């Protein structure tokens, strides 16, 4: 199911944590979109363009348009290197850039945008960006816009998380065990019941996605009653 995530348009949330980072999966999905011949726009807020492009070959990099909100997002530098209009205008401008043809927009990260924009404003912009205001039949599958949003779960309260969750067609929550990463995928399709699946995977150095089988039960550690549970813990360990 992880392989077919890009078949669905709309907003996809990649929910990661300090222990299980999600930028690798975001880059893997960006690579898959680029290889399908789609336009790929990346709004980079947390890492530099150089760091984001690292690991991609020239074929992928040539299809990737990076909108730099990392260097000077708040116009502190002189002379300013900021994108005009700040984060909100940069986000709205992506809507105009993806008018024709299928497109993928990667937001790295939604957490940064949520810290700097009001939650209702951000949700409205995401709703417009992922073309959810049009009827499902109006947009042919070949012209769907897909928005991938990286979200750091520990940084937000239940209110903003719930609001974004209600907007998303797909939610991928990253976790893992014994060094092996897993994705819990919740998919919502119109007029269908939500589907839920867990997929173990690894990402190769060139950001190709490799699906894995579930680790055997014997290799999974038994829970130690004396060890404090990490569920809900704020620390990454």
């Amino acid at each position, binding site marked *: 199911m992880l392989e077919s995530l890009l078949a669905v348009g709309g907003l996809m949330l990649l929910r990661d944590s*300090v222990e299980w*980072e999600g*930028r*690798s999966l975001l*880059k893997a999905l960006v690579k898959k979109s680029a290889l399908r011949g789609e336009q790929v726009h990346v709004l980079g807020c*947390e890492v*530099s363009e*150089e*760091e984001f492009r*690292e*690991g991609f070959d020239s074929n992928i990099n040539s299809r990737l348009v990076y909108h730099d909100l*990392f*260097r*000077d*997002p*708040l116009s*502190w530098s002189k002379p300013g290197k900021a994108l005009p209009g700040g984060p909100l205008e940069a986000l709205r401008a992506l809507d105009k850039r993806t008018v024709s043809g299928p497109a993928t927009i990667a937001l790295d990260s939604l*957490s940064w945008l949520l*810290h*700097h924009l009001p939650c209702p404003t951000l949700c409205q912009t995401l709703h417009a960006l992922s073309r959810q205001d049009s009827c499902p039949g109006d947009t042919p599958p070949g012209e769907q816009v897909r928005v991938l949003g990286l979200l*750091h779960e*520990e*940084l937000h*309260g239940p209110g903003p998380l719930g609001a974004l969750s209600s907007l998303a067609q797909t939610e991928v929550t990253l976790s893992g065990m014994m*060094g092996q990463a897993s994705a819990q995928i919740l998919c919502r399709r119109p007029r269908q019941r939500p589907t839920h699946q867990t997929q173990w995977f*690894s*990402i*190769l*150095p060139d*950001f190709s996605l490799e699906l894995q089988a579930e680790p055997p039960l014997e290799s999974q550690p038994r829970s130690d009653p004396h060890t404090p549970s990490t569920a809900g813990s*704020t*620390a*990454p*360990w």
Partner: protein
Amino acid sequence: MAWSWEALWEWNAGKKPAQLRVQGPRPCARLCACAECNRSARFIGCGQRNCACALLPRVPVWWVLPSSLRSIRDSPSSHPGPPCVLELGMFPELNNLLNTTPEGAEQGKLTLLCDAKTDGSFLVHHFLSFYLKANCKVCLVALIQSFSHYNIVGQKLGVSLTAARERGQLVVLEGLKSGVDVFFRPREEPHPLQFLREANAGDLQPLYAFVRDALQPVDSGEAAWRCPVLLVDDLSVLLSLGVGPVAVLDFVHYCRATVCQEWKGNVVCLVHDSGDTEDEESDVLLNGLSHQSHLILRAEGLATGFCKDVHGQLRILWRRPLQPTTHRDRSLTYQYKIQDKSVSFFAKGMSPAVL
């Protein structure tokens, strides 16, 4: 009379020994450092396995270099002893755990130091002396202690912060002192801690401007310092002073963009983990910085309480660069004991006191 140490030193000092007579074959030019040759002071090839004399052609002894004599005289054995901590500075065992040296320090990294139920300031002192030894230009934003405190500890670790500041390698912002100055300056004059005057703490742009001006590379023909480094001790106090967590994250973001990305330097910050106190702002700051960091060092107090021989445990987590399929250990956990001039690390349960 056979060659003796005294005779050789006289020769080295430019004085011809009174009488010189060599017993046996001529000694080789290169003075062998093996124990047997040293003991006999004859250097004619003792035949021991590590004796270099047998490998070299026999040449007149007056070709012996004075430096060879000095090095053998000063070393009681054939191998010099390990340098003491005072000569190295910092904590060598921690360098081993991090697999780094001052000469080979990585650049362009954000290192997060975190402590929970203990005092992690020893990590700040380690990195301060580490980067000074690495010949980096260092900016220390000291919000907790005075300069003299860091200087006293630095001297124990073999670095003089006073000397580093005088030669321009170290720039220090003393928060305790500057925090008072800000109230006696004209309002128009910018100050790094300007937020203290504001009713609404706002952002930390003036503090970022101070860091940028302190570490900006000088445009000269040859770089004086290896790379710029920012150390902040500590960021949690900014929350106590009324700055919001997002504002602190923005400050670190800009420091990362400028110091790490643009100038290929490093940033090291200390934050406190509030633990079970449900401090939402502290959690947002800690987790937000954790997501930005390349390396996280977390010092924790022992769950069982105080122990004379084990002062805490250190967890090390490597987060970036993204290496999805690396087989390298992403995290390590060691216990430690802080001594007067060093910190010793050992595996859990392997403290020398219990073995």
